[in-house]
């Protein structure tokens, strides 16, 4: 029998993880504003020596195959693009969460980071290849953070995966989301949303975290973005990059077609691009980092 948890428990878990750094927070706020420019990004990164060093390490990693070393931060940032800068900043200061072994989902060490990175790339690609009037960079960042709640509730789900899968196969539970709710009284989107509030993440990102499995429930103004990440998440899982036993055990909301037109061939192209990009980015992050990612 698993123990039920409530908001107070989640809040306590959130308190035990380090806060986002000031620079990561500023980057998130700045890049969410449609009117920002690259100079602001450069300025924020410059104030953070650790982040500066990491950005230069990533851009000079073998995965990017640059012939001449980039030593100027301005050039590094314009080469990598702002989404990767935000990705590096978040990845670094939330590494305790991203690197968590999701035992409750029988996931392996590094699965959450790989799934999130793949979702980020896929969400960006969905936006880039459709007519959505939203920033592909924002879709990337939202994709990176969408599943962060799993790191908060995973420990409470330990030992349940076999039983959940059996119940889903027997139609006793409809999907993994309902299973989380039924077992511990809290699902991972809600847990992630609590974190988003505590970390004061931009509203658009908080909305994605909360509704990425139930995009129709998101506020109208954020629905396009939420649907884009919903698809990105599914594309990542189809690509074999889930977080464990729950992979592919969520429902696709086909109403995405209200915002996003996607022919089968376009989806195939997106999946191809996502795989290529993922292999490259995963390598560059791994080479530049000293964690196990």
């Amino acid at each position, binding site marked *: 029998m698993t123990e039920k948890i409530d908001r107070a428990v989640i809040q306590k878990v959130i308190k035990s993880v380090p806060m986002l750094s000031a620079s990561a927070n500023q980057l998130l706020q700045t890049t969410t504003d449609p009117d920002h420019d690259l100079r602001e990004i450069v300025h924020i990164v410059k104030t953070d020596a650790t982040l500066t060093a990491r950005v230069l390490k990533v851009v000079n990693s073998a995965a990017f195959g640059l012939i001449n070393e980039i030593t100027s931060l301005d050039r590094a940032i314009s080469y990598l693009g702002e989404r990767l800068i935000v990705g590096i900043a978040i990845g670094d200061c939330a590494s305790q969460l991203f690197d968590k072994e999701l035992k409750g*989902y*029988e*996931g392996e060490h590094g699965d959450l980071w790989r799934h999130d990175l793949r979702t980020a790339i896929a969400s960006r690609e969905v936006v880039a290849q459709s007519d959505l009037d939203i920033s592909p960079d924002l879709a990337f960042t939202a994709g990176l953070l969408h599943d962060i709640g799993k790191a908060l509730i995973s420990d409470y789900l330990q030992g349940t*995966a*076999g039983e*959940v*899968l059996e119940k*889903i196969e027997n139609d006793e539970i409809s*999907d993994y989301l309902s299973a989380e709710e039924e077992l511990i009284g809290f699902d991972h989107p809600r847990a992630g949303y609590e974190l988003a509030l505590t970390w004061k993440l931009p509203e658009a990102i908080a909305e994605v975290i909360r509704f990425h499995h139930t995009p129709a429930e998101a506020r109208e103004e954020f629905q396009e973005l939420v649907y884009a990440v919903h698809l990105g998440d*599914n594309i990542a*899982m*189809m*690509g*074999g*990059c*889930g977080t*464990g*036993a729950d*992979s*592919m*055990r*969520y*429902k*696709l*909301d*086909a109403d995405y077609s209200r915002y996003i037109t*996607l*022919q*089968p*061939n376009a*989806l*195939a*192209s997106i*999946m*191809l691009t996502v*795989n290529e990009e993922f292999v490259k980015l995963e390598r560059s992050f791994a080479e530049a980092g000293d964690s196990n990612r």
Partner: protein
Amino acid sequence: MGQIILGVGDYGASNRPGEEVKTFALGSCVSVVLLDPKTRTVGMVHVALPESAINKAKSVEKPGYFADTGIPALLAAMAKFGCNPKGKGMVVKLCGGANVMDTNDTFQIGKRNALSIKKVLWKYGMGAVAEDLGGNFSRTVSVSVDTGEIILNSPGRPNWKL
């Protein structure tokens, strides 16, 4: 025990006793396993997409990526081990091709992969003797050169054989 690990779009073969050919986490991808009893060779290709028409350049660089170019590439690789280049006498097994829940037609890449693979096999006069396709879960697949037996696993489930 020696292992040949295949990534997305890779193919490989082995006839070395004790060795196994393995690929991780097939979501909608399909692993085509070819067993040649005559030469005791095992081959596998990790197919990601049904048709190479969407990106010809990619199919030249990595033919294993697509059903229509992956199977010929695997057969050519196995011919180097003395197998029949047209796949004569080979045993075929298929795994993977999962779909997300409540999927619509567009997102049924897993199903389309499996169909496209079967069409290509049919052109060679080949058909699968065993398959573990579909469902809503990802599979890791390994096949032993010694026995030709496939072991499948998926997080949260006990391993099973094919």
